[in-house]
């Protein structure tokens, strides 16, 4: 999905009409403290309950039956054998399922076509039936016993995206997404040119926690235990799909074993579990298994990107074009925004980004960490590396020379762009000055003590920064604790912790007296956790709720009978370290807020918080807001055995103010490991003869292990963004991944002389290296 579409989507959630400018005062020390996660002990002791951990009395288990053709119609479904098997209570399919509705304007769904709508199959693995039984084993056996025949049809899962289509800009041809000057003319006359096609594969999200739904129906209301990156959106969409009012659906996602974008929007299993629960009038658990994760819950779509760069011999960029395609499913048009960073990353007068979709018989693609930007930057940054080589320029120097403080796509200044500093700090930390540019010219020792060739590469990173509207509720309680809630969720990134820090900053109450409640759609609406916007979005509403609760507290203090400060106006009072005191007296002279509540016979002092999206902030609209970064990679290359390993990564990120360096560093380090996977291992492979994602398991879909983890050095510039609102914090979930893969392929080229333009880099590619064995 386009980042802009995602922003529209989050802005569409209800919230406050107007954003507030950032306070100018510096926050207390708790902001910027490397606090361990407040939910850490729950996770390390196994007490945190994830969706599929919920069990209920009389619960039945559902197991889907998956299509074994990639295209066609179901000719027959024979459930007779399955229905007679022990424990089986229901076998549901398009012929007998209660109606599941399409999502109209509820929110954002993943697949527009609801499950079991008709007899059409459009990808291998699509759910065609659901077996429900007393035990999981019985349901599994029953699902295997359902016999389905198909009238198979022609299909296409080709990895080549070279389908014939009209010219760029023509009807049904590629769409022009960004345009300035006259690229073709500038490129034609450019003395130095790069013209190359880059390809990125289908990647499967594969969070540790697989998708799953436990649906409880009480005759009127649904409670859905989900692994969701957006409980409010999930409630909105399921309300439409199930045909029940929103107040009759409660979506709960207290803990999420990560999502990487794959859990932003509901997938068909959720409606299936709920429908089965309603029909059977009993709780139903449906766990999506690892195999289904490869076909039924989205993926990063395949891209093919032609990059053309024209330059002067001294490195001025005369023109830049990115003409790309990505595949999408038959039912849904998902445009991967590969041109996200292209229009503004480097200075050039002539530019064009065009985009086209090609249909494939695959499940619907969905955002995966840094959607668009990550594959897009692989192409852009690889082409920049090739340009530097063509110009015989240092790749860092070339990028420094092309830096700009104006977003040339719209003429706006950047709110806070420090790409240059990222490159400079990164060069310093990495030791870039020692790099010799000749291929295979650098030597080192591997961890095992073998002589290896070193390759060094660099790439820049960028990711949009924004925030949507959000709400929060906060109560100062008579027992001395604080309860704060919002209908957002912590997808494993540290949202619980950051919310607690903000509350502590505003109220002065220590973290261990703050209870953060997230992951419940019955709370006031908070944001979907995606696009690296959750922190920036939720923080201002939490701050607002805290400020309002404090105001209420001061009001109570002045007006309550028996109050030590009876008769004082809120203007005379302040709350510090959880104590209410006279503004001109120290906190130590004050009274703990809980004492005042007790005296006033009040359970709590409450505050509602509301904050608007960046788009509603009239001042911020005049700026271009993005995060930036620079990533440096070292690879070790042992040509004698074609062994390639990423040995060292330095990642420098300009992500606004860092609220918690520990959770933030954790995001960056994880992104580096994910980048190693993207660079060297990951690819979902569809068998062209049947459309099956044939490596749909963790033995055949290779992800990095601890042994593949390089030495990691993460550094944040930590410069608050004046336009981002509270604290000037931007999001940092995705930026850490953005430059890793192109920095790896640049390093591979430097070590081996092999330019890999199609990810991942495989042994097959580097075996061709000409470096003497």
């Amino acid at each position: 999905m386009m980042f802009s579409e995602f922003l529209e989507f989050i802005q569409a959630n209800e919230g406050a009409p107007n954003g507030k400018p950032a306070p100018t005062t510096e926050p207390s020390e708790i902001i910027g403290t490397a606090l361990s996660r407040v939910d850490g002990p729950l996770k390390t002791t196994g007490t945190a309950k994830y969706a599929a951990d919920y069990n209920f009395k009389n619960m039945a288990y559902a197991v889907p039956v998956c299509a074994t053709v990639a295209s066609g119609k179901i000719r027959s479904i024979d459930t007779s054998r399955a229905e007679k098997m022990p424990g089986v209570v229901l076998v549901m399919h398009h012929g007998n399922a209660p109606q599941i509705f399409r999502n109209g304007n509820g929110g954002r769904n993943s697949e527009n076509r609801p499950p079991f709508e008709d007899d059409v199959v459009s990808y291998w693995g699509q759910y065609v039936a659901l077996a429900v039984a007393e035990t999981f084993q019985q349901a599994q056996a029953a699902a295997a016993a359902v016999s389905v025949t198909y009238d198979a049809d022609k299909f296409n899962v080709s990895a080549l995206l070279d389908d014939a289509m009209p010219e760029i800009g023509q009807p049904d041809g590629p769409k022009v997404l960004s345009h300035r000057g006259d690229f073709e003319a500038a490129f034609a006359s450019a003395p130095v040119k790069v013209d190359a096609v880059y390809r990125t594969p289908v990647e499967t999200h594969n969070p540790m926690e697989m998708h799953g739904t436990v649906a409880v129906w009480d005759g009127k209301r649904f409670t859905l235990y989900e692994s969701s990156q957006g409980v409010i959106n999930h409630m909105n969409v399921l309300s439409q799909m199930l045909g029940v009012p929103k107040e009759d659906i409660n979506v709960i996602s207290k803990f999420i074993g990560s999502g990487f974008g794959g859990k932003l929007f509901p997938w068909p299993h959720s409606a299936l579990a709920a429908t089965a629960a309603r029909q059977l009038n009993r709780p139903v658990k449906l766990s999506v298994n690892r195999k289904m994760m490869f076909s039924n819950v989205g993926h990063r779509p395949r891209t093919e990107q032609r990059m053309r760069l024209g330059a002067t011999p001294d490195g001025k960029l005369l023109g830049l074009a990115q003409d790309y395609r990505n595949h999408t499913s038959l039912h849904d048009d998902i445009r991967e925004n590969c041109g996200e960073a292209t229009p503004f990353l480097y200075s050039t007068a002539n530019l064009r980004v065009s985009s086209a979709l090609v249909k494939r018989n695959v499940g619907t693609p969905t955002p995966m960490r840094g959607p668009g930007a990550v594959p897009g930057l692989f192409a852009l940054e690889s082409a920049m590396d090739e340009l530097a080589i063509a110009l015989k320029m240092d790749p860092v120097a070339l990028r420094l020379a092309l830096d700009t403080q104006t977003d040339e796509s719209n003429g706006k200044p950047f709110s806070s762009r420090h790409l240059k500093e990222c490159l400079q700090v990164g060069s310093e930390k990495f030791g870039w000055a020692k790099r010799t540019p000749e291929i295979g010219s650098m030597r080192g020792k591997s961890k095992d003590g073998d002589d290896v060739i070193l390759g060094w590469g660099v790439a820049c990173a960028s990711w949009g920064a924004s925030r949507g509207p959000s709400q929060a509720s906060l109560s100062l309680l008579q027992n001395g604790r604080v309860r704060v809630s919002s209908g957002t969720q912590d997808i494993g990134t540290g949202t619980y912790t950051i919310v607690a820090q903000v509350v502590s900053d505003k109220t002065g109450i220590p973290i261990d007296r703050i209870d953060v409640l997230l992951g419940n759609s019955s709370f006031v609406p908070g944001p979907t956790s995606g696009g690296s916007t959750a922190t920036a979005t939720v923080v201002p509403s939490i701050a607002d709720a805290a400020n309002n609760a404090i105001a209420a507290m001061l009001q109570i203090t002045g007006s309550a009978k028996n109050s030590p400060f009876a008769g004082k106006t809120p203007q005379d009072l302040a709350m510090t370290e959880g104590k209410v005191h006279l503004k001109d007296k120290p906190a130590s002279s004050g009274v703990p807020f809980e004492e005042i509540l007790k005296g006033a016979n009040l359970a709590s002092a409450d505050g509602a918080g509301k904050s608007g999206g960046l788009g509603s902030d009239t001042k911020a609209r005049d700026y271009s807001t993005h995060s930036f970064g620079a990533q440096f990679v070292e690879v070790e290359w042992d040509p004698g055995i074609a062994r390639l390993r990423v040995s060292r990564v330095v990642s420098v990120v300009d992500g606004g103010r860092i609220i918690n360096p520990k959770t933030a560093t954790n995001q960056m380090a994880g992104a580096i490991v994910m980048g190693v996977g993207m660079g060297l291992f990951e690819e979902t492979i569809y068998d062209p003869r049947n459309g099956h994602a044939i490596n749909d398991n963790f033995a055949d879909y290779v992800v990095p292990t601890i042994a593949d983890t390089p030495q990691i050095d993460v550094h944040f510039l930590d410069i608050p963004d004046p336009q981002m609102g509270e604290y000037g914090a931007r999001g940092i979930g995705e930026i850490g991944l953005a430059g890793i893969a192109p920095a790896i392929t640049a390093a591979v080229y430097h070590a081996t002389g092999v330019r890999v333009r199609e990810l991942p880099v495989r042994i097959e590619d580097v075996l061709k290296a000409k470096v003497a064995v």
Partner: protein
Amino acid sequence: MEAFKFSRAATVDQAVAAHAGATTAIAETRFVAGGTTLIDLMKLSVERPKVVVDINGLPLDKVEATPEGGLRLGALTRNADVANHDVVKRDYAVLSEAILSGASPQLRNMATTGGNLLQRTRCPYFRDTAHACNKREPGSGCSAIGGHNRMLAVLGVSSDCIATNPSDQNVALVALEATIDIQGPSGKRSVPAGQFHLLPGTTPHRETALQPGEIITSVTLPKPIAGSKQFYLKLRDRAAYEFALSSTAVVIKLSGGKIEHVRIALGGVGTKPWRALEAEHELTGKSADAANFRIAAEAAMRDAKPASENGYKIELAKRCIVRALTNATVQA
């Protein structure tokens, strides 16, 4: 997974008797040792035994010296215990290294010497009942030829099956010239490790020399060759926890600068743990240098037949052989 009967055998005879009823090579009765292959495949409905006999109670879990100066590994010895056994580390280092290069610590704690010998191929089509596979369903066809075969074999392939034997342990056992000790309804017998696994030919469902009712009781390692050096090298995409794209086990002895004795076995490239006889032949009596190693590597891969995606393995295996020989002789 499908329902099955479960029993525990207390003696080898009981186990043999329980298994002897099986009529076909794709037996309806299965022993379970560590279970890391069998249970995995049962969950995928690739293995569908009617009867599962637990053999973990059998007294086959010892590592013992043999009168001939070798070492006997009981069939139920765990891979982790064998790899970390002092005598194995000292005299059969290639076996220790091979085992430790495979799977994960958790799996090695469960996996047994006997079970490892009989682990099944990782061919993705074998492991998914939606696809035709001659090994799983004789006569149904081979989906890997012309499909996703990047991981599969280039040596010993047939037009009916190109599946790799995925084991690391077995490669070392072949290089060490171990023997597999078997007990069955008609008594005991021993088979050399190099002959234990069968080429697929037209019967890829027949994988080993075992007959219905037969159980592996132990693996015997011969007396170590004095003065020999050993080395195991495994090449794969990532650094750990992945099956070999190519591996080499070397047992080599130099004498007066010349190669007096050499055994080379290859993993990841053959339909069975592959003894590189041609390479050994090229090296015997020659000096241990890079040129001769490369000649040997060429000889080893001369008969390789690549499929659509795995041609790279031929060059990779050659480099693997050269490096393994180099490392083994550098130590020498």
